[in-house]
């Protein structure tokens, strides 16, 4: 029994880490008041970048992780700049960036796949499973990141500034916060984490690439983040549930004899359920979303 559980935990560790990083990054972005609808596009793009860099560098994992984080962070900075500097709808900016991400992903990924096809025996990725004790480190890392993020968000000045910008940017500005700088920072940090999540998803979990790889999983990270009220520790719980569902979908399907198409829907149905449960319980008020999430903030407008 214990062996079975260990095998289960080891098997889902990579996808768990991927979701956790992306969901945490998303939470940080949204804590600063930026509604992040770009997440799925940038997640998909990150997967392609991680894949391509791994192919070009002959599977240099570190280089791949680093480049992906930087690319994603640049998109985070761009999104934060657009919606804070100008009176632009967060939804429009985010969704445009999502489609941009999808498009760029194909552009980046296809040549790399052609190259991989032409080099015999080039495999990319880093497998974390029961045979590789690194899986234990993954769990420890997740808990450490969670505690670190909790301290960062709740106990440091920059953390307070990020929350202030998300609650009420006009008031935050009056209190002495440079809302633009803080959001650029939150955007960069959050998207870097989303990028890392995408890279881990590709390198440690999928390990192959075709057009559209990872599509929808950014939205799962979105749902994970929301259903945990953007709380760094609760996120561990919700990411593990979704990681388990995604990883063992086929097993569940076989066990209960569910049609494949239906089984594939399962994580998304769970996502909706998780969000509904979150909204319908007192959690909604305890872990309320940032008050100004997604609201246009324009400094030079007359306010009453």
């Amino acid at each position, binding site marked *: 029994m214990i062996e079975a559980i260990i095998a289960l935990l080891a098997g889902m560790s990579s996808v768990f880490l991927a979701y956790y990083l992306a969901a945490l990054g998303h939470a940080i972005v949204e804590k600063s008041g930026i509604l992040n609808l770009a997440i799925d596009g940038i997640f998909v793009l990150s997967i392609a970048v991680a894949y391509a860099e791994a192919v070009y560098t002959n599977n240099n994992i570190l280089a791949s992780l680093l480049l992906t984080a930087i690319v994603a962070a640049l998109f985070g900075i761009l999104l934060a700049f657009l919606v804070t500097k100008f009176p632009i709808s967060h939804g429009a900016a985010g969704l445009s960036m999502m489609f941009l991400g999808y498009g760029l992903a194909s552009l980046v990924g296809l040549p790399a796949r052609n190259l991989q096809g032409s080099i015999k025996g080039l495999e990319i990725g880093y497998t974390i499973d029961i045979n590789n004790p690194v899986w234990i480190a993954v769990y420890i890392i997740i808990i450490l990141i969670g505690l670190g993020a909790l301290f960062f968000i709740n106990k440091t000045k920059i953390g307070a500034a990020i929350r202030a910008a998300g609650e009420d940017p006009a008031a*935050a500005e009056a209190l002495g916060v440079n809302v633009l700088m803080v959001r650029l920072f939150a955007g960069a940090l959050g998207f870097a984490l989303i990028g890392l999540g995408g890279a881990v998803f590709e390198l440690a979990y999928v390990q192959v690439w075709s057009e559209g790889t990872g599509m929808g999983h950014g939205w799962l990270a979105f749902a994970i983040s929301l259903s945990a009220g953007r709380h760094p520790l609760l996120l561990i719980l919700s990411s593990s549930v979704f990681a388990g569902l995604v990883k063992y979908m086929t097993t569940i399907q076989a066990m209960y004899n569910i049609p494949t198409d239906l089984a594939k829907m399962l994580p998304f149905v769970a996502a909706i359920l998780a969000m509904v449960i979150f909204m319908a319980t007192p959690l909604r008020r305890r872990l309320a979303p940032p008050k100004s999430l997604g609201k246009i903030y324009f400094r030079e407008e007359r306010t*009453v």
Partner: protein
Amino acid sequence: MATQAESSKSFFSSPSTETPIIKLEGITKRFPGVIALDNINLEIHRGKVHALLGENGAGKSTLVKILYGIYTPDGGRIYIDGRPVKIAGPMDAIRLGIVMVSQSPVIIDRLTVEENIVLGLEKLNMFAPIRRIREKINEVSKTVGVKIDPSTEVWKLSYTQKQLVEIVRGLLLGARVLLLDEAITYLPLEEKKKFYKFIRQFADEGGTVILITHKIPEAMDVADLITVLRRGRVVGTVPVKGTSIEEIRKMMFGEKSSEITYERLPLGSPSETILEINDLWVRGDFGDYAVKGANLKVRRGEVVGIAGVAGNGQKELIQAVMRLRPVEKGKIIYDNIDITNKTTHYLRLNGVGYIPDLPAKYGVSIENNILENIAIIPTFSKEIINWKHIKSLAYKLIREFEIKTPSPETPVKFLSGGNIMKVLVSRELTAATKLLVAYNPTRALDEATAIRVRKIIKSKVINENVAALIASEDLDEIFQISDTIVVMNSGKIVGVFPADKAKREEVEHLMVM
């Protein structure tokens, strides 16, 4: 007006040779469609309490927001200690020793006291843990005479405590100039007196206070000098000693000043009960109970005024009545029908008008124009809008309430706060054929307009047998307009008085008890 201009000139040419701490030269600020400030020249001196008075849209708030770096002026210069400065943001202002405290506390509810304070503190680097300043906060709090735990989340504090937090914050940031934007206007008398004392002491120790208010007595009580603004221009500056309320009133309103009176308006003649609240429990924004078992009756032909310091459950009570907030327990009966499970739409179709707090946020849609803001109310239009009808109604309201707008097609966001309020109040008074529910209905209005609005509400109540339930933080308003005064404190109703028997001291005591 010439005499006032003269007197102000003579004042400034008199002895004071020291460099003013703040000097404004030709400050101009335009918003789309309006000139908020037109060539303002003003000197503020060290160790003085300087009041800025003016009716709404006069430009008081715009002026202090420029000093605090929230707006950038389109023209003119600011000198601090004789040196020209550029204040591009609040951080610049704070560095110069200028800190603002405003009417609706500009602090963030979900953050703790210390988090709110630390945000402006440059000495602490961005990644430093916040608890390092806890000691410092406690120290400064003591000098102001407040006891607030720095790790409390701000939403748990009362309105007064929030204002105190802002003061503590200002002092901790090393303020030399405190900008008080209507900061003490709505405090009950006892608390106000404490503030007056603090302000005096701060000025005596060499600090400078700029007090923005639309209440003349407040300025007379605490200021050394009064500058009156009107339509974005300086009318004049006078020392408080040697001037009178009447004189200031004339500077502010010109001809209209004779209309201002705080006498109680004629009493109504209450008839049948139209609104009944039984053992009402309502939750606040943060999940705890804000209204704890309230009972209340409102009859047609009377104004029931709810007095209370902000944040004692009035807002939640009003929102529950309007069906904008879920009722946890208890019943609301309107016009003999239990509306506890009905919608706002139902109330709108059945003769209820509603004036919410923060009108620009909850009362009107500021991106839309006046016509659209009228047409949206189910009282005035069915599925298909009769624009001709709406337009004639709009013109009527603009005329009757003297709404200053280029046209009824102007987006509401281009109007001044006072005029936005007029759009809302005029619309809701028209909609209220049986009941008017309101929260701070005259908050953003100047004295003359506020009194006119109260008179209009009262005459509607008396002549058309309408009922009104009005919660207000302005006790003058409650006493002027109400037939029945209800005092609310900590979510409970702690006193009910017929207006002609209510004593101000007693009501104030119950408010802060």
